[in-house]
């Protein structure tokens, strides 16, 4: 740290390994300008509007809590994000484990099953869920042909549909961080535990699982953050009947033009995202003590 400071205060000429301050600033300047114009200023203005419109007030924040509909939306968003994260963890961990422990063709096959959805647009995948779940969709057709139902079930535009589709869309974001940690945990550790008399579940629960926690933390955080603010899937599969924070924001801006309220909702979304990122960094620094190697 001290040497870095000393270096910074030395003359401005650039050393061969390090570009000088003036040149470096020139190189990042276009990016900083872009971020100011297209990110900091617009988001800042949206948040500013929620408090100073035109006088300082918290009335728009109060509305989120006071009006039962908005409180319901807030609660539903948290609930859906939580359930999606839990489901994605339960489905994703075994896949990450298989990917990390398999080899050759099998590993390639599992990896392809994870990467192909990741690379496919979320819009396309949400559309697919509409086709699967709609009134004359695949699920209803199958159930009718099997004679299990007489009239089609209403599956689309329900909370269940949003949870199902979002779990599908976000699953790769859960799998990859867990995989990248599991890949670096030598299988010999679990084998050693087995040799010392542990059963296979014991070896997994007491050796592999605890060591993979940083990956699990990264995956669950990523999934939860994305689920909180996700727009495309709730908009298409949830519809106006299953409003979440994101779809409520869209409604407030495109239909009702209520910018201050949309700003207040943005602030809540942003604050929860930042809080989670900070908590996660804490959790990771705690875990550093347990790293192997």
């Amino acid at each position: 740290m001290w040497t870095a400071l000393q270096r910074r205060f030395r003359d401005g000429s650039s050393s061969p390994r390090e570009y000088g301050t003036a040149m470096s600033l020139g190189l990042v300047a276009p990016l900083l300008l872009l971020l100011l114009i297209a990110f900091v200023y617009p988001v800042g203005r949206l948040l500013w509007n929620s408090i100073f419109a035109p006088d300082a007030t918290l009335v728009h924040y109060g509305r989120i809590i006071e009006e039962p509909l908005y409180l319901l939306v807030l609660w539903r968003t948290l609930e859906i994000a939580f359930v999606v994260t839990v489901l994605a963890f339960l489905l994703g961990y075994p896949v990450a484990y298989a990917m990390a422990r398999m080899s050759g063709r099998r590993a390639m096959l599992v990896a392809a099953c994870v990467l192909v959805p990741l690379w496919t647009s979320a819009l396309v995948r949400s559309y697919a869920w509409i086709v699967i779940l709609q009134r004359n969709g695949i699920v209803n057709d199958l159930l009718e042909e099997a004679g299990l139902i007489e009239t089609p079930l209403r599956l689309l535009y329900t909370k269940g549909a949003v949870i199902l589709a979002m779990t599908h869309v976000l699953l790769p974001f859960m799998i990859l961080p867990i995989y990248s940690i599991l890949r670096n945990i030598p299988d010999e550790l679990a084998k050693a535990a087995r040799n010392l008399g542990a059963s296979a579940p014991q070896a997994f629960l007491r050796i592999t699982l605890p060591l993979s926690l940083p990956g699990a933390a990264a995956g669950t955080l990523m999934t939860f953050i994305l689920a909180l603010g996700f727009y495309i899937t709730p908009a298409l599969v949830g519809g106006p009947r299953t409003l979440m924070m994101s779809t409520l924001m869209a409604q407030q801006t495109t239909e009702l033009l209520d910018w201050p309220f949309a700003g207040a909702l943005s602030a809540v979304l942003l604050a929860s995202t930042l809080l989670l990122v900070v908590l996660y960094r804490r959790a990771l620094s705690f875990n550093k003590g347990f790293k192997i190697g």
Partner: protein
Amino acid sequence: MTSVTGVVAALGLGLILFFLLFPTLIVVPMSVGTASHIEFPPRGITLRWYIEYFHDPDWMAATWFSLRVAIATTFSATLVGTLAAIALVRGRLPGKEFLQAFTLAPLVVPHIVIAVALYLTFAPLGLTGNLTGFVIAHTMLAVPYVVVTVSAALQRFDPALELAALNCGATRIQAFFYIVLPNILPGVAAGAVFAFLASFDEATVAFFISGIEGKTITRKMFEDIDFNLTPVIAAVSTVLTVLSLILMGMIEIARRRSGYGGPRR
């Protein structure tokens, strides 16, 4: 492991993989079905929906608009992102750690917040529904991907090579173009592909800042899914999916060949 638990485990894994893959690829069989409403499995096979897509002026206008936005975004994001990555990895910068985190901020902030904010700021300036507004917005969203891939490539590059070039009499500029750039090119290329897809597949911001004239393919899909759910959407989805898979497949193959960032086994 006993064979029974082995079979159960394989079966469970198979079911999860099916859950991952089936909704992703189902648009392909749906796009070639003969019925005018979506049916699965399709009774007959036809290319009618693709022909309709390619002959519909609205779809074509949206497709060209998306392509122009994505290509312009690719160039600007690659240029801006590469320059910034060089400074962030090799430069002497005050508050470097903060700057590194700040450049990645658009990845963490929910896209709906960015979308609504851009709509609020861009609409009065006449930047909605046109190329300029879209390129600014999409470059901002795509640039973190370039910064990440190019930074990774730069960290693997040995500065001693550049030093050698300088000792042999090359100028800084020459050393960059003859030594540094060729070495980090795989990272730059990967960043460019990510930037293209980040723009072409982007739907949330595009939904908000599209206009009646300047409308992306994703916004057009959004509208048609809401108002007339025809198999043409399945055809368009298939085109999008195939394009994404080809581009990402190229990155993956290049990565494995060059050993760049790939799984170390």
